[in-house]
């Protein structure tokens, strides 16, 4: 299964939690930090992201970027 990583634009997040509910691997959660608008931004708190993009597709505020991680060897193959 593909490996991935989620990038969070914390200032944009409004803490709605739709991505947390949409993630099939349950690697997202609402963090304890507070952004300048007073919301607690989402964070990826553990490994296991499969780069399915469900979080980014459901996010109403385009907070998330999704990266697919590949071994250098696999890239050359």
């Amino acid at each position, binding site marked *: 299964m593909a490996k991935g990583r989620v990038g969070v634009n914390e200032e944009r997040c*409004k803490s709605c939690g739709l991505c947390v509910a949409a993630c099939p691997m349950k690697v997202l959660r609402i963090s304890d930090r507070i952004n300048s608008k007073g919301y607690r931004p989402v964070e990826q708190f553990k490994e296991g992201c499969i780069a399915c993009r469900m979080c980014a597709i459901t996010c109403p505020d385009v907070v998330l970027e*999704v990266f697919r991680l590949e071994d250098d060897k696999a890239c050359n193959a």
Partner: protein
Amino acid sequence: MKETKIFEKPKSMIDVTTHYCPGCTHGVAHRLVAEVIDELQIQERTVAVAPVGCSVFLYNYINVDSYEAAHGRAPAVASACKRLLPDSVVFSYQGDGDLASIGMAEIVHAANRGEKITVIFINNAIYGMTGGQMAPTTLVGQKATTCPLGRDPKLAGYPIRMCEMLATLQAPAYITRVSVAKPKYTIKAKEALTKAFQTQIEGKGFSFVEILSTCPTNWGLRPVDATNWLEEHMMPEFPLGVFKTPE
């Protein structure tokens, strides 16, 4: 390890925080429109017509030439723009208070004339910006500030199904209802928007995409609960599907 970015903000979306409430799916609809504009490479010739309602600031979020129409009149403004600039791609983006209430005459006649425009209709079954009053699309029994005991059909009639109504007309080319409540629906919504814009670009006629959306603030629900409420209550009343498709 090599990282490949597989999801980012669409280029025709302006890099600002929206004014929408947390969990409001207007943002998803905006992003889908911007993605479709990027993919069809039509940013330079697209004209948006913003409504009155929560999405009144559409022009602050999607980087295309824009009008702001009087309440409900977006299809009339879009018709004029398309007739004067036939090479442009013109879409209006309207909520249910704007399109199905005060703007009912404009949308019906624009559809009936077969104007070669695209109308994006956000249906969240309530008036959002003005504070949660009953809309023409409010469900029977659904509570709103102007029907605190729930919509009573004896007093206020039944929710209007715009897609079904417009599909009885001969002129419209493409009429469909989608949702952005959950990723599985959002993916299909993007396909519908792509087809709607293509219908216009190919000159096939009027295209109409109704998007079932949530309004967590005025429904009084948490954002995730609102998506579930939409699935349980709105989808039976407003079934998803294609009502008319270009030949």
